[in-house]
């Protein structure tokens, strides 16, 4: 009895969570331009538009390239920070780690404004790099936390064993630490990538309409008039996420990556 009510509850939550997914999918294949649901007549033309209409395609490529760069930047900052905290017990490592946590401890609009103002001073708004850097630094928190988790799961004895066999710090890092923390790095990158694709406010502030990522484009096009291309873009987002996280789940231990304890950790 209890089991059944638990399952029902969970399904209710899942159905509610997936409601927008259905809407968006349904609207995206609707033949006519109006917002009807259920769709009347099926068509894939809105998907075509994303690739054929210049503004949409530009927005798509902008989002993708920024997301990749942001992911790399976030990872490059997260790894040393997490590593230092783990290996070196200097106070500064803790300070640095706390700074890394900061972006997620503030309402994003504040970060966005700060960045905008700073870069406006140099006239560096409205370009790809600006947004990529903005995302990269803002999204450091998640990869950092995940990599920390991964590092914590490494038994210190493994490192000591490597050292007794003559490996110095660099070699130990390269041959023992890195392979073990790699899944967490990949997961961290995946998160940063997906979150960057969907990030709105920083892209909005820093892009200043010169560079538009997909979310910004959706926003501005909804202001000027509705088009179902918005929906098809959304569906593509969702599919992208499904693929990315599906791959992570297929090749990695997803529960573990998200912080669950494996039975052997006890």
């Amino acid at each position, binding site marked *: 009895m209890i089991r059944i009510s638990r399952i029902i509850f969970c399904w209710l939550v899942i159905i509610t969570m997936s409601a927008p997914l259905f809407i968006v999918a349904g609207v995206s294949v609707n033949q006519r331009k109006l917002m009807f649901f259920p769709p009347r007549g099926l068509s894939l033309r809105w998907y075509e538009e994303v690739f054929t209409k210049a503004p949409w395609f530009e927005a798509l490529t902008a989002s993708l390239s920024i997301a990749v760069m942001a992911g790399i930047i976030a990872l490059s900052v997260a790894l*040393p920070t997490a590593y230092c905290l783990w290996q070196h017990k200097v106070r500064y490592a803790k300070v640095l780690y706390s700074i890394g946590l900061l972006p997620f401890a503030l309402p994003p609009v504040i970060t966005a404004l700060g960045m905008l103002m700073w870069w406006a001073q140099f006239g560096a708004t409205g370009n790809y790099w600006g947004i990529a850097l903005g995302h990269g630094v*803002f999204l450091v928190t998640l990869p950092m936390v995940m990599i920390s988790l991964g590092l914590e799961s490494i038994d210190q004895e493994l490192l000591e064993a490597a050292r007794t066999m003559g490996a110095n710090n660099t070699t130990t890092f390269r041959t023992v630490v890195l392979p073990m923390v790699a899944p967490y790095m990949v997961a961290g990158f995946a998160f940063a990538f997906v979150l960057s694709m969907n990030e709105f406010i920083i892209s909005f502030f820093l892009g200043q309409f010169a560079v538009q990522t997909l979310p910004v484009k959706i926003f501005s096009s909804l202001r000027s008039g509705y088009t179902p291309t918005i929906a098809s873009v959304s569906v593509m987002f969702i599919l992208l996420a499904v693929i990315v996280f599906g791959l992570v789940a297929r090749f990695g231990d997803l529960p573990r990556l998200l912080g669950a304890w494996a039975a052997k950790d006890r």
Partner: protein
Amino acid sequence: MAVIHPIEARRQTPWVVTYPTLMLGLFFLVPFAFMIVVSFWQRIEGAESGYAPGFEFTHYARFFSPLFTRHLLVSLEFASLSAFLSVLVAFPFTYFLSRFGRRPQVLTLVFVLCVLSLSEVIVAYSWSVLLSRTAGISNLFVFLGIMEKPSSWMPGYGAVLFALTYFNLPFATLIMYPQCTRLDKSLTEAALTLGASPVKTFFTVVVPLLWPTILTAFIVLFVFTMGAFITPQWLGRPQHWMYAILINDQANSRGNVPFASALSIFLMVFTLALVAITVRLGRRSLQR
């Protein structure tokens, strides 16, 4: 090959920190500091750059006008309510999820991650469709006979609250997930053997032990939601607009950057103060 003595290595600040320090410092801390500085600068009407170095408190004084106070309170209300509701729904969900078998658990996690990756734009847009008259859920209810004719549930207070809560659900789940999985199953089993029904066990053992993570989720969601931008605009009326919208308005539309900075600083301080209070209260309730 020189083997670096482990103890030595831990005393010095390693060179590895220079890169992250540079990045975080230059692209995060400095902009921040700059913003604080600018919030005290003067606003020049009509000038090209719009503002110039100076030092004044005029911007900060404007907070206490009725308009801005009202928007602050609205933001506060929405953020705390939606965080609360989200955690209320997400906690049992996450707890049950952590007790699933491996396969259902992984599938659900992938699902949650996919929902998480929906941008605020998409979520707001989807719910604006779902709550509308022509294409919304009310049509479904009419079909099922629960309602007589379709109606629009947006824009409105309920729509904004609902969408904000919805948006927070996957975040809440992922924040609480680690601790939920770490709860020793034998603790709930022990409670059962001592005569506590599953419901009683949930409230006397599970919730008290997972209280810290519940609180954490609430605080993180609260802070995040204080920065909601699109949802209040699309699903609510002007009286429902939250602080981030004002900041954007001042910065981008009116060019009053110093004031926008002041607003941001104020928002940050206010939010952090509330967080500190909540943490303090949370800790005290634990020591009951």
